[in-house]
């Protein structure tokens, strides 16, 4: 049992934290140069990491920083999906390419198996919604159903699709947590088939995405709490630092308790990423549920402890709070994962 980072990971963390603290301009290629993207892939995939703890480390640091970078959606998720199917992802790793996975559908809520988009041979028709990083994607991976009912795990194939392919339209919009997404409409759009049965690969990929999302949320919570602790120590009212009022300071302690719960949940999730699916998913669901609950508490309470200033767009806390809360709308929310945790056996 050992909770210390390996020397390599400690170095990566230090480098990344330093880089992000000063990051300006083209952050993306900077990250690629530092090897941060390669750290998300295993050696056989051409990277030099890819383990749960690599993902946790990278995304916790990204979460701590005041920037919105779709690394999960433009690289991690589509990249691991492709690499898992034996495709080359070197363009992602050197920062020259970006992808996006068009999977979620309007009626699917958070259920991975829900696919109504139809595949007729290699021609795809249907609607995908909230495809994050779609407008910057050089290529899209699209899921579609060639057989079965909308909630069957079998019958879901995966295709590579050119964003400019005939019949494809993208409608972009901004996201609360920063960045953008698009709704994508496909009408008899041609694609290159990656696999006939893609559900297991999707599940593995989404597990990595979920872990990354929890780590990023943890990082955002850390910054929100540090900002709040500083604010309580410096802001004065009624002649005293407001952190000297128990009505505020004791609630701050409860948030620190929540933060430790969240941190442990992410560590557990990272440790289980390469475990067999049922075991892995039980721990991942626990992590997502805990991050959902503690994250909402931290977001709401850090705003409240700040008062009005915490409500303003100018002050960074509001951006962290939005990222924390909106993370609950990705990779399954608090209730979705509670239900999956129960279904996997109490």
């Amino acid at each position, binding site marked *: 049992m050992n909770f210390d980072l390996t020397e390599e990971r400690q170095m990566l963390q230090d480098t990344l934290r330093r880089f992000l603290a000063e990051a300006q301009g083209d952050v993306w290629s900077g990250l690629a140069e530092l090897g941060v993207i390669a750290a998300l892939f295993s050696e056989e995939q051409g990277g030099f990491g890819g383990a749960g703890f690599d993902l946790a480390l990278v995304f916790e640091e990204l979460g701590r920083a005041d920037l919105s970078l779709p690394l999960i959606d433009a690289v991690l998720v589509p990249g691991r999906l492709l690499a898992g199917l034996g495709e080359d992802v070197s363009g992602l790793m050197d920062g020259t390419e970006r992808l996006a996975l068009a999977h979620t559908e309007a009626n699917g809520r958070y259920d991975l198996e829900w696919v109504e988009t139809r595949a007729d041979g290699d021609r795809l028709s249907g609607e995908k919604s909230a495809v994050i990083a779609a407008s910057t994607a050089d290529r899209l991976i699209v899921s579609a159903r060639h057989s079965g009912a909308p909630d069957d795990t079998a019958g879901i194939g995966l295709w590579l699709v050119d964003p400019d392919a005939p019949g494809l339209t993208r409608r972009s919009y901004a996201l609360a947590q920063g960045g953008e997404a698009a709704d994508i409409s496909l009408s008899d759009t041609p694609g290159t088939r990656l696999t006939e049965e893609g559900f297991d690969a999707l599940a593995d990929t989404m597990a990595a995405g979920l872990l990354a999302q929890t780590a990023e949320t943890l990082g955002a919570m850390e910054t929100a709490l540090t900002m709040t602790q500083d604010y309580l120590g410096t802001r004065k009212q009624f002649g005293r630092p407001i952190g000297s009022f128990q009505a505020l300071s004791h609630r701050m302690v409860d948030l620190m308790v929540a933060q430790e719960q969240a941190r442990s949940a992410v560590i557990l999730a990272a440790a289980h990423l390469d475990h067999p699916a049922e075991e892995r998913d039980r721990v991942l669901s626990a992590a997502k549920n805990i991050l959902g609950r503690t994250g909402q508490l931290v977001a709401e309470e850090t705003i*409240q402890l700040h008062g009005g200033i915490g409500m303003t767009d100018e002050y960074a806390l509001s951006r962290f709070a939005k990222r924390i809360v909106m993370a609950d709308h990705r990779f399954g929310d608090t209730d979705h994962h509670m239900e999956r945790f129960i279904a996997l056996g109490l």
Partner: protein
Amino acid sequence: MDLTLSTEMQAFRDEVCAFLAAELPPELAEKGRRHQSLDKRDYEFWHAKLNDRGWLAPNWPKRFGGAEWDAVQRTIFEDECAMAHAPRVVPFGLSMLGPVLHKFGSEAQQNHWLPRILDGSDWWCQGYSEPGAGSDLAALKTAAARDGEHYVVNGQKTWTTLGQHANMIFCLVRTDPAAKKQEGISFLLIDMDTPGVEVRPITLIDGGAEVNEVWFTDVRVPVENLVGQENAGWTYAKYLLTHERTNIAGVGFSRAGLAAVKRIATRARQRGRPLIENPHFAARVAQVEMDLMAMATTNLRIVSRAAAGQAPGVESSLLKIKGTQIRQEITDLARRAAGPHALPFASEAVEGSNEPLPDPLEAGAVAASYFNNRKLSIFGGSNEIQREIYAKHLMKGAS
């Protein structure tokens, strides 16, 4: 005890509903339902409609052109308006300044300012909060120095709601810098077109710009714009704050919000079934619905005491706490119900933007509304301040 409305009150409610059905344009209600922000002309339109009916100033005495309703009538009216998603009546002139002028204004001030509030000539905003003061309102620093027949005002106010539309602002200013904290404060009416007044918008967490900073640099205000006595402004300020607390429970908003949650959760599908049938989601809805039933009854209890002439006391702090908790829980449920459809964001909350977002559930800007409503427990006397007020009351006389 009898919890049913009297025949008169039932008739009054019917009258309000009929008015709303006839006069509230569906497009305007739809804006409210979707959490879109309103234009200045939306507010002005609705104010004029209410003024035509004599319902714009429910709490004003009849001699000043008010409806002079009792607390029960006002509650019925406010709840029905909220449930119909009518625009809110901008409260700064009507609920805040009005009562202060009624009680402390000179006859000249009453004759000049009150009709202009009703007919829309003036749009008032509030200059209470300052950046350094927060919940410690009396720590204000904006200074007004007497110079002949003028006060010269320097300083800064903040959280000035809808100040971008206003032409007038009532301010607490410090007229005696040597006096103790609550003393030396005066209540001034300031024309925002005076040179030296600058309004800067504050963008909030939801992307909307409903609040502002207002800066004063050597702003000359005629002395006749002083309300009451110099250095006695804290008394008027406190009087105003107790009057601000109408509809503090927000029952109508919560009912409208809960109806919206159910509508969204009925449209939202989970494995092909309406989300509202999911036992865990249903439990969340049920719990807040039950809490709202009880809180609405508490509100009626306090309101009916107020209608019987007993002044609402510290219990309004309890209502504020529970009322805002429930409203915030409801906006949280709306966000949850929308699921992945809560992700599209921002532009609907920003005035002037009219790029529609994808919204298959017709949920509206639920995430923006969730973030915006964090303000409910902060502004207007934070819930911590409410707890402190009530705690002091509880511990009164403790040795």
